[in-house]
């Protein structure tokens, strides 16, 4: 849920841990990642201004929009930007990422514009310098007092155009491990990159929020009309949150876009997650309830009474020998009596199998001594 990820970012890090990190991931089927990014940024800013969050300021590393866009965005959301010097800094990697304007200024064809809220970054390929700029800006926010700041990276996809995955991973890891960074979040367009890149960024983050279109592949075919309506601003918001104890909280929500921003609602139809692949064939539960335990204690096991002194009776799978002996005698007395009468027709039946000796080689159960 979007609220819980904003809350996690707000709470930041614990002592001795890495900073909380969020990856916002979108695809071409649901390309609203930037709206989610703006939503998270404005939520975090309102927490910072209200003093509820661990960090006291945010550094925005802007690759896809100019700094003025962010200032306007926050103004529109009702966040006090006049005091913005105290809590937000923007590293402008949008205006002149590789320093071409500098060269043009030297040639005299462009005039330089100065910007007060943002610091210009002229070479996005030099990630060490970028890291130190971010940290400097953050320190500028906090001042002399010990405190924390958050970092928001506009788009890692754009960073990957200029730098290698390893160096970006290094940068993110350094930022996460930095003592003063309390939380960090970034946006990624997953279809622009190889699977490995997405895997690396998910590895480095403690929360992954992905945007998916509303229909799952399980639903099969849909009519053209429904597909068209999917282009409307709706989708599924899927969050995986790594908890400290090693369990993963998975949450689903629906989002829809409005003019003022993005809204999240709980999912209308529950998608049951069945972790069939995760759980292998398991053994059955061998725990017993109290009653079962008592009953079990009362049972006399087969070989337990072997030394007692009663004659050992080997069970042969038919009626018990004592009973059959009794029956045989009863039958024989009866037959004697009736033979005496012999006026009525009688069928005298002697079971052939009673004459046989029980053969213990045939059936292993014959050894059982009950």
């Amino acid at each position, binding site marked *: 849920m979007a609220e819980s990820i904003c809350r996690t970012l707000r709470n930041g890090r614990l002592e001795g841990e890495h900073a909380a990190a969020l990856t916002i991931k979108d695809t071409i089927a649901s390309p609203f990642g930037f709206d989610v990014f703006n939503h998270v940024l404005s939520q975090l800013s309102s927490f910072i201004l209200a003093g509820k969050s661990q960090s006291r300021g945010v550094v925005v590393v802007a690759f896809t929009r100019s700094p003025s866009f962010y200032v306007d965005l926050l103004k529109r959301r009702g966040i006090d930007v006049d005091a913005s010097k105290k809590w937000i800094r923007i590293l402008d990697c949008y205006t002149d990422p590789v320093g071409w304007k500098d060269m043009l200024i030297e040639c005299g064809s462009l005039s330089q514009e100065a910007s007060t809220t943002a610091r210009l970054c002229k070479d996005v390929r030099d990630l060490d310098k970028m890291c130190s700029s971010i940290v400097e800006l953050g320190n500028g926010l906090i001042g002399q007092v010990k405190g924390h700041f958050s970092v928001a990276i506009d788009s890692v996809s754009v960073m990957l155009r200029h730098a*290698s*995955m*390893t160096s970006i*991973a*290094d940068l*993110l*890891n*350094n930022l996460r*491990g930095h003592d003063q960074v309390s939380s960090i979040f970034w946006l990624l367009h997953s279809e622009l990159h190889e699977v*490995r890149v997405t*895997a*690396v960024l*998910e*590895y*480095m983050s403690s929360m992954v929020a992905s945007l998916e279109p509303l229909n799952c592949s399980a639903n099969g075919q849909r009519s053209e009309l429904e597909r068209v309506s999917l282009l409307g601003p709706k989708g599924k918001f899927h969050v*995986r949150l*790594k*908890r400290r*104890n*090693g*369990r*993963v*909280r*998975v949450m689903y929500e629906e989002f829809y876009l409005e003019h003022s921003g993005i809204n999240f609602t709980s999912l209308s139809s529950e998608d*049951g*997650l*069945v*972790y069939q692949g*995760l*759980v*292998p064939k*398991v*053994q*059955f*539960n*061998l*725990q017993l309830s109290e009653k079962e335990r008592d*009953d079990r204690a*009362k*049972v*006399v*096991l*087969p*070989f*337990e009474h*072997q030394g007692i002194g009663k004659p050992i009776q080997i*069970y042969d*799978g*038919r*009626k*018990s020998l004592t*009973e059959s002996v009794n029956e045989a005698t009863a039958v024989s007395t009866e037959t004697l009596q009736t033979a005496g009468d012999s006026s009525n027709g009688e069928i005298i039946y002697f079971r052939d199998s009673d004459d046989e000796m029980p053969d213990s080689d045939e059936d292993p*159960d014959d*050894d059982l001594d*009950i």
Partner: protein
Amino acid sequence: MARTNPRTSSFSRNLSSAPSSQSPGLKCGPNGTVVVSSGIPDLDKILGGGFPLGSLVMVMEDAEAPHHMLLLRNFMSQGLVHNQPLLYASPSKDPRGFLGTLPSPASSKDDKSRDREPEQEKGLRIAWQYKKYFGENQNNFDGNRDCSHQYCNDFDLRKPLERQFLSGQHVDCVSIQDSPNLDTIRDRCATFLNKLSRNDGSITSAGRIAIQSFCAPQCKYSNMEWDMLSFIRFLKSMIQSANAIAVLTFPPSLLSPSFSKRLQHMADTLLSVRAIPDEDKDMAKLLTGYQDMVGLLNVHKVARINTQVPLILEATTFSIKLQKHRFLVLECLNQAPVDGSSGTSYSKSSSCSGSSKTGTLDF
């Protein structure tokens, strides 16, 4: 007539290089190997004693859970408690800091909770035809209960390891983050293992190498897959002729599938840890003890040295639980009873049940 040495064949090995009783960290394992403890008593039982000397253990991490750190911590602490040399490599800037999080062996009064288990087993009534021919069933896992001389300690994850264990000269740490290639760690491993090379004399001590998150993305060599593979081959060949064990963890999701498979094949013992979803109702219904579980451990391969016979385990998936939030326990998964199953096989018992003296025995 209780036997002390369960023999599986009529041949007995000439154990001239057997570890003496003065080195509690080493034990005779199956097939003439010498094993060291992994630091987790349940894991030792599963693997048949411990990790054999000269083997490479690999643990496949899950990107979503830090359980491999639990395994590493116990492994390293066990080595330090037994005064075995340790080399630790990690992709962080300050690996020494990790040593401060190592757990300490549980004090003896905490051990009582684990003692109850073997006692219960002795009270188990077994109806066995040949019981009259044998004495009491022997139990190999006792020994002297002295904490420092125990082969495998129960580690209390909330208590940090005492300083005295960490300050020896035989504890070495390497950071693999900043080096552009694998040469630094290769050299450090080589120097470490050269001191422990195997000769025909008796084994006095064994070394432990712990490498954490080997192909972490922030390491500069993480794209150089063939180099990583050749480093592991090098490590494996050096370990085979040394009295040492190496435990290496790596995240397989960050490698290409073919390289992940290649690395897995290099391992002598291969384990993997997996995260479980939180508050999953389906899983809670399917498994008992779901509330206490923090993750799953899979045993994919067990080292078999000096033998052709593979070890076939009863179960390969175990749940990782933290007992009292302190002790790492591995348990077999138990499925919760399912309604309406297995009724038919017991229905033809009518002819047998008449002769039983007490009611509930059905065959």
